[in-house]
C-alpha cells in the first residue's frame, strides 16, 4: 500500500541574490552567480528542487598570512604572496567565488590595487572583507567600493557596531553587503532590519549567522541556521537572506587542524585530520542551509562540491 508522504508547504522562501556583474551588466566578471531562492528546508527534493546550487568560495588574503597552517602554505605555495595569482589558482581549484580578506597592514592604495589586480586576474565574482577592525574596515572598504563601482562585489563584514559606512558605500556603488550577528536569530533579524532601513535593496544582503568550528561551538551555529531557515520559510522577511558561512576560517584556527606535533595519537594523521575538520564543519553547515561556504583547502572544496552535487541531484 503506498504511503502518503506529507510535504511541508511554506508561505515564505529565501531570496535569490546575484553577486558579480558581467560586462553587459556594467562590471567585468565573466559570470555572475545567483544563490538562494530555496522554498524548502535544505535539499528536500521531494518537496521542491533546489533552485540555485550553494556555492563554494575560497578565502585568500591581500598579504601572505604568516599564521596560516603549514598545510595550507604547502598547497598554495608561492601564490600566497601574490593575491592575483592566488585568486587564479583558487578559480582553478573549483571556487565559484573568491573572498579576499584585507589586512591591517594594508594602506588604502594597497587595498585598491590588490582588489583591482584580483579582479583583473580572474573572472569570478568577489567578496571583500575588511581586516575586522571597525575604523580600518571603513578606511579601506570605502575606496575599494568606489574603485570597483558596478562590479556587484560583496563588502563585509557588517556587525551591529559597524555597518553604516559599509552599507552606505555599497549602496552608492552598486555592491552587496555581508551582515554578521553572533549566533542568534533575533540579533540577525535586528541587524538585517537596521541595514535594510538604510535603504539598500533587499536583494543586496547576505546573512552571516557566525560559524563555530567542529568541536568549538558548531552546534550553536547549526541550530541557529535551521531556525533562521524555518523563520524565513514561515514568512519572516528579515530572515530570508541567503546565508554565508566561514568553516575554513574557523576550522583552521583549531588545534586539530593547526598543530601536527605533540598532539594525542588518537587524533591520527595530521593532514587528513585537518582536511576532515574543515570538511565536516562545512558539511554540517551545508545540511543546515548554507548558501555560500567559505573554505581554505582545495581538497575540502572538491569534497564539498561533490556532496552538494549529490544533494541536488537526488
Amino acid at each position, binding site marked *: *500500500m*503506498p*504511503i502518503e*508522504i*506529507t510535504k511541508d508547504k511554506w508561505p515564505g522562501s529565501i531570496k535569490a541574490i546575484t553577486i558579480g556583474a558581467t560586462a553587459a551588466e556594467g562590471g567585468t566578471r565573466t559570470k555572475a552567480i545567483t544563490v538562494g531562492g530555496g522554498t524548502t*528546508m535544505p*535539499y*528536500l*527534493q*521531494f518537496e521542491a528542487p533546489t533552485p540555485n546550487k550553494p556555492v563554494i568560495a575560497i578565502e585568500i588574503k591581500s598579504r601572505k598570512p604568516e599564521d596560516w597552517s603549514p598545510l595550507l602554505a604547502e598547497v598554495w605555495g608561492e601564490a600566497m604572496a601574490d593575491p592575483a595569482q592566488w585568486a587564479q589558482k583558487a578559480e582553478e581549484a573549483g571556487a565559484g567565488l573568491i573572498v579576499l580578506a584585507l589586512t591591517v597592514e594594508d594602506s588604502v592604495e594597497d587595498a585598491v590595487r590588490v582588489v583591482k589586480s584580483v579582479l583583473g586576474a580572474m573572472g569570478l565574482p568577489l567578496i571583500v572583507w575588511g581586516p575586522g577592525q571597525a575604523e580600518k574596515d571603513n578606511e579601506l572598504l570605502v575606496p575599494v567600493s568606489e574603485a570597483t563601482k558596478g562590479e556587484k562585489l560583496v563588502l563585509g563584514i557588517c556587525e551591529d557596531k559597524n555597518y553604516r559606512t559599509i552599507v552606505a558605500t555599497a549602496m552608492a556603488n552598486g555592491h552587496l553587503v555581508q551582515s554578521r550577528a*553572533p549566533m542568534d536569530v533575533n540579533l540577525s533579524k535586528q541587524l538585517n532590519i537596521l541595514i535594510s532601513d538604510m535603504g539598500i535593496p533587499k536583494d543586496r544582503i547576505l546573512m552571516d549567522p557566525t560559524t563555530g568550528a*567542529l*568541536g*568549538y*561551538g*558548531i*552546534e550553536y551555529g*547549526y*541550530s541557529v541556521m*535551521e*531556525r533562521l531557515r*524555518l523563520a524565513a520559510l514561515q514568512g519572516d522577511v528579515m530572515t530570508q537572506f541567503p546565508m554565508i558561512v566561514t568553516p575554513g576560517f574557523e576550522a583552521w*584556527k583549531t*588545534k*586539530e587542524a*593547526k*598543530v601536527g606535533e*605533540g598532539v*594525542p*595519537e*588518537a*587524533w*591520527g*594523521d*595530521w593532514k*587528513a*585530520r585537518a582536511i*576532515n*575538520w574543515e*570538511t*565536516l564543519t562545512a*558539511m*554540517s553547515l551545508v*545540511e*543546515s542551509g548554507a548558501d555560500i561556504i567559505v573554505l581554505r583547502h582545495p581538497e575540502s572544496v572538491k*569534497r*564539498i562540491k*561533490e*556532496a552538494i552535487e*549529490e*544533494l*541536488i*541531484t*537526488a
Partner: protein
Amino acid sequence: MALSGIQIYKMLPQTNCKECGFPTCLAFAMKLAAKQVELGTCPYVSDESKKQLAESSAPPIRLITLKANGTELKVGNEVVMFRHEKTFYNKPGLFLRVKASDPDITKKVATADAYKVNYVGMDFTLNGYAIEADGDLPAAVKAVRSVTKRPLMLIGSDAAALDSSLSLLAGEGTLIYAADSSNYEALAEVAKKHKAALVVKSDSLDDLADLTKKVQAKGVEDMVLDLGGKNLGEWLTRSTQARRLALKSNFKPLGYPTIFFAAQNGTDKEAIYAAQAIAKYAGFVVLDTFAPEMIYPLLVLRENIYTDPQKPIQVQPGIYEINSPKPDSPVLVTTNFSITYFAVANEVEGSGLPAWLVVTDAEGMSVLTAWAAGKFDAERIAKAIKGFDVASKVSRKRIVLPGHVAVLSGEVEEELPGWEVRVGPREAVDLPAFMKQALN
C-alpha cells in the same frame, strides 16, 4: 499519537471504584494521559484496552538496545526533527565493518577496539563491529568476540550460518543485517530465536513498511531500517520522510531507527557520508575504514549534534591543580565552559609546566561569549580569586587573564589590590611559550 484523557477514559471500566486512588475513572484517565500514573494501578483494565493503550504510548521511534558482555548501546526513541525543538537523545552507534574472510580480522578489531579519544573530558570509542559473512561466520564471530566486549552486527543472508553464529553470542543483543522481501521469513525466525534485532531493507519506503509489518507478524519487534538510496540526496529525502512519518503521523511501520553504510560509494566519501548520517537521523553508522583522523572528528560531530541545546557542557568552577603546582606557580584564569577549560587545561598539562587554573563561574560560556554577556568581568574574576582563597595557596600574588579580555586588566587590578595582573596570549596553544618566556 498519544491519546487524550477522554479517549483513555473510554477504554477504562467506568465504574469509579476508586481502587486506583482516584475518585473517578476519568480522573485516573487524565493522570494517565499526563503520564503521571501507571496503567497497572487500575486492576480492572481489560486485556484489549491494555494492548491499545500500550501501543498508543509506545515511543514513535522504537528504542533498540544492543548488548554484549558488559557494554550496551541504545538507539532510537527520538522525538524531534530539529535539535533546537528539544534535543536529540540517543547518539547513533558507530560500527566498523570487518570481513569474515579477512585473515587479519582479529588484529583489526583488536586495534580498533583499543581506540579511545578524549574530547572535553569525555572518552569516546567505537560502539561495535559489523562482521560480514563472506567466509566462515561462526569462526569470525569467535575471533572477534575474543578481542572485544562491544555489541556485534552480523551481515549475511544464510539463516543457518547466522543461527549457529548467534548461538555463540547467547545472552547478547546482536543486530542482524538484513532481511528483504525474499528472505525475511527465515531471518525473522533466527532473530526471534536469539532475541536479536533485525535490519529490514528495501529500496522504497512503501515496501519497507509492508516488510516491517510482515516481520512483526513473525514475532520480531526490534527492527532497524535500511532505507537504500543511491546518494546523499536520496538518503536525506528518505531519512527525512521516514522520521517525519514516525514522528508527525505516528506511522508505526516506519517507527524504527535507521542504519547507514558510509562507504557505500567509496571510502573517499566515507567521512562526508557519515557526517550527513549523524546530522540527519541515522541510528547506526557503519564505517569501512579504521582511521583515527576520520573517526575522531566524527565522534566529535556526533557529540556536538547530540548535545542538549538547553545545557552547555560545563565544568565545576573552582581552582584546578595542573602538574602539581607549587606556591610560586602561576595562576591562570578562565571560564567554566567545558571546551574552554579543556583547551587551556590540556595545553598546560601537555607542556609539563605547573599552574593553578582558576575556573570562574561564567554560566558555562566561552571567554568572549561570557565577556559579551557580562558573565566574565572584573567583579566575577575577583570573586573567584577571593572565594577559592587563591591567596592562601600561592606565594606570588599574580594572575594571568586570557588575551581576549585584555581590556579587563585595569578593572581587575582595582578589584584585587595587591595582585599583579598579567595578560596572556589569545589562544591557549601559545600559553606554554608565554609561561616559559614571559612569566619569570
